[in-house]
């Protein structure tokens, strides 16, 4: 009896696994890309709503934190009106959002590329793929392969796009590779993603050494990214005299957990 039930569940497990693998192979076909994109876009509005709820919760908790700090700092603020405090918190949040939007607008003007602004509505489901979900898709001109940035610097690349949503592979993804050059030494290297921080392999050059504090910018080598986008700052370097390259950690200019608005460059075609 026990053995039969075990073999039944094993059979069910194998059938379900086989079904899911068949589904994976079918949905991977190019003719199924449209349906897959539509299906993936379907969750975007729900994720957007959930992200909004999360932002509101953050705002409220930030408000509580502010109130607590103010109480300890100054007894007079005990009499402050609750509504006024809430308004201050809301205004602070609005000002922060305004600053982000202004930064994005300035960046678009100075960078000279056409861009589409998009809201981040979700993240990848696990640590194996560091991705972001945005609320713009093919209906807004977003296509797979397009470069994604913020006013601060490079975020990643559009991996898949549905009609009203897209998935962006960030630089933090373990499969991500970006060719860069260093701002002071001019040395070339490749930035790769990782579980905790970005890493860069800096190629040795006669008489030149990479130093902490240098900025890593996209080199344009390989044609995958336009030249000159800021990736991050060298945080620590491990010199390897016996090797042809040094290894360094890069402090990414974008905090992946804090990105809420991104810009998709729509007029740069990666080669």
């Amino acid at each position: 009896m026990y053995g039969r039930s075990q073999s039944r569940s094993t059979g069910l497990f194998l059938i379900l696994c086989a079904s899911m693998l068949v589904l994976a192979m079918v949905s991977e076909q190019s003719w199924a890309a449209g349906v897959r994109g539509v299906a993936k876009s379907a969750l975007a509005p729900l994720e957007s709503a959930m992200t909004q709820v999360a932002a509101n919760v953050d705002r409220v908790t930030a408000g509580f934190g502010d109130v607590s700090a103010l109480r300890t700092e100054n007894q007079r603020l005990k009499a402050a009106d609750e509504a006024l405090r809430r308004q201050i918190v809301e205004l602070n949040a609005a000002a922060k959002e305004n600053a982000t939007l202004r930064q994005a607008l300035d960046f678009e003007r100075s960078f000279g590329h056409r861009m589409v602004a998009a809201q981040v509505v979700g993240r990848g489901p696990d640590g194996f793929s560091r991705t972001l979900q945005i609320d713009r898709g093919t209906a807004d001109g977003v296509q797979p392969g397009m470069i994604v940035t913020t006013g601060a610097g490079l975020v990643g690349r559009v991996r898949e796009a549905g009609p009203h949503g897209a998935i962006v592979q960030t630089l933090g993804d373990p499969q991500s590779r970006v060719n860069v050059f260093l701002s002071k030494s001019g040395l070339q290297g490749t930035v790769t993603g990782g579980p905790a921080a970005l890493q860069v392999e800096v190629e040795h050059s006669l008489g030149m050494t990479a130093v902490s504090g240098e900025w890593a910018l996209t080199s344009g080598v390989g044609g995958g990214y336009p030249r000159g986008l800021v990736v991050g700052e060298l945080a620590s370097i491990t010199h390897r005299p016996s090797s042809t390259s040094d290894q360094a950690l890069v402090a990414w200019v974008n905090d992946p957990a804090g990105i809420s608005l991104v810009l998709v460059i729509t007029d740069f075609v990666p080669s």
Partner: protein
Amino acid sequence: MKRLLAVALMLATILVQVTWAPRLTIAGVFPNLALVAVIAVTWRSGVRSGMAWACVGGLMLDLTAPGPLGPHAVALLAGAYLTGFWTRNVDSESALHPMLAAAAGTAAYSILLVAADDTLGLPVPPLGVAMQLLVAASVYNAVLMPLALMLVRGHLHASPAARVSSA
């Protein structure tokens, strides 16, 4: 009605996982709530229920991830199956076993996910990085397991006999 409620609960879990959970990132990983839920359901009400939740949750996860539909469902199924195997062979009242099952289920999930991606020709992380993520995620999900069991206790009532018959 009960099934619809289960689907809605799983959808809510997935949405929390892809919107809120990344704020709790430690050592490069954040809670895999869908996997923890599947393991908790399997532990409480048997491997068949767990595999049903795994299919639904896995397909929803696939909708939020790059690539085809299916790999996350296969990975969650492995987690459910392994947990079902575990529950049949250990003292289900022990507090330690669900945590160990969660750690083992996470390891199975991670290996299957990377293997499925590799089989389908999708990019996979380097072995060292994958191992680091696997270990960190196993510990994280194991720590969350008692809480998950407390949450599902109120919703799912299954005696050990029912669990065996379900298996």
